[in-house]
């Protein structure tokens, strides 16, 4: 019949699919390539081991921002994991709990809010009562961004665990909380870790919510109760500065950040497969 035309249409569609893939991939590779080329020159020993030089002077590095990012992001992930996993368990394992409609609404709204608003919330909740900026308040802001992601992934993977596992546990005379903690959560471990990593990757790239919380700090500190620098914050400050050398370092920070987030994403995907 019109077999020939169907083959032709098939090939046309294939072509469109490949073309669409290309349209998506080309800008991605272009961005990565550009960041790499611009940033690789800034990555030297000094970049990783020195605090910033005073404005206008050459040299200096990103050590406070690197340390700050590690501390602020880790704390944020800890806060977000506790609340996010707990809420995910409630939504998935106790679907009729009266709190759930509210929880789901809050999670959905939070997921849609601009990141800078989370900074504002953390400013009111932490910075104002403390009386000064701090890495901790930045962690709270980032945690607010991470929580809805963790809630969703946790709920999703827990719902994939066969109900038979829960029933088998209950039939052994185990209390419900023990079944969830020792049987259901371990079975969902890979997926939950993936959610945590994705949330970390999302939060670690944010600068806006940190502007009036973590604030930035040119001096190396390990104390999250003091103002702290992070890579995205430094990137932002350096990028809008008038100094050539700071621009160079901003590209370096961009490359480091992109690499760190890609590695995190890669690890998340590996955890998902196992």
């Amino acid at each position: 019949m019109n077999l020939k035309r169907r083959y032709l249409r098939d090939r046309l569609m294939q072509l469109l699919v490949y073309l669409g893939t290309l349209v998506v991939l080309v800008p991605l590779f272009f961005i990565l390539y550009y960041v790499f080329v611009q940033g690789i020159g800034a990555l030297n020993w000094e970049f990783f081991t020195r605090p910033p030089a005073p404005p206008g002077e050459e040299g200096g590095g990103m050590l406070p921002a690197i340390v700050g990012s590690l501390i602020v992001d880790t704390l944020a992930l800890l806060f977000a994991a506790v609340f996010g996993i707990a809420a995910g368990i409630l939504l998935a394992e106790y679907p009729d709990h009266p709190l759930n409609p509210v929880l789901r609404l809050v999670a959905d709204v939070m997921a849609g809010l601009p990141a800078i608003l989370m900074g504002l919330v953390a400013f009111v909740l932490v910075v104002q009562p403390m009386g000064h900026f701090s890495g901790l308040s930045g962690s709270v802001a980032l945690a607010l961004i991470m929580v809805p992601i963790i809630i969703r992934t946790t709920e999703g993977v827990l719902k994939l665990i066969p109900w038979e596992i829960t029933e088998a546990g209950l039939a052994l005379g185990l209390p419900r909380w023990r079944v969830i903690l020792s049987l259901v959560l371990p079975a969902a471990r890979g997926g939950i870790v993936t959610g945590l990593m994705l949330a970390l990757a999302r939060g670690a790239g944010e600068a806006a919510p940190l502007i009036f919380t973590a604030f930035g700090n040119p001096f190396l500190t390990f104390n999250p109760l003091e103002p702290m620098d992070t890579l995205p914050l430094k990137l932002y400050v350096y990028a809008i500065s008038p100094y050539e050398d700071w621009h160079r370092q901003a590209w370096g920070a961009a490359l480091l950040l992109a690499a760190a987030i890609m590695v995190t994403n890669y690890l998340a995907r590996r955890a998902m497969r196992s």
Partner: protein
Amino acid sequence: MADDVRMETKDLTVYYGKHPGVKNVSLPIYDREITALIGPSGCGKTTFLRALNRMHDLNPIVRVEGKVLLDGEDIYDPSVDPVLIRRRVGMVFQRPTPFPTMNIFENVVAGLRLVGVKDREELRRAAERALKMAALWDEVKDRLHQPAVGLSGGQQQRLSIARALAVEPEVLLMDEPTSALDPVSTQAIEDLLTRLKENVTIVIVTHNMQQAARVSDRTAFFLDGELIEFGRTEEIFTKPKDPRTEAYITGRFG
């Protein structure tokens, strides 16, 4: 055969929403016997079975009315903790359910370890005892620390039985335990049932009438949520009193 009643339902009705899946069933379950529940699909036998250890509790649309007595005590009394009931009345499901993150040994002793039994020697003894009762010991004794999901379907089901036995229940409920298994594994589990009843009271739901006739001491025939007939298995299968029972066991429907 001592005619001691171990469990008993009195006017047990189980509603799914407004629809009763089990209607006014009063049935005695005799100590250290095998009671088979037979009937066509959707007749309420599994619903009835799950009411015997409060497995319906987690389903908010299910409502249970009437009484289920275990040694004379109503297990639906508000003062009764369902967790303690399920320790005494265990359950084996239609499909094997090894816990995927645990090895064979951990699976068998899960019901003990997860309530705080820590003594390694005690756990090892319990595992060996349960696996021997479930006729699985010889096949797995050299690979106790390998993942349980690596076992065959028949082995996994015997593992599920061993796991249920490890907590030493007084009553074991079995919901079509061999329906997903090949004839050899089915045979192994039927042999096991006959040995188990020396210690444990067994209630088994089965679609397979030959199985009911082979292993059970008493048989209850369910139809549309009602208990049609209950009696000694040989009587149910040789001279049923109700024409519907006779129609079912002679294969005229179901």
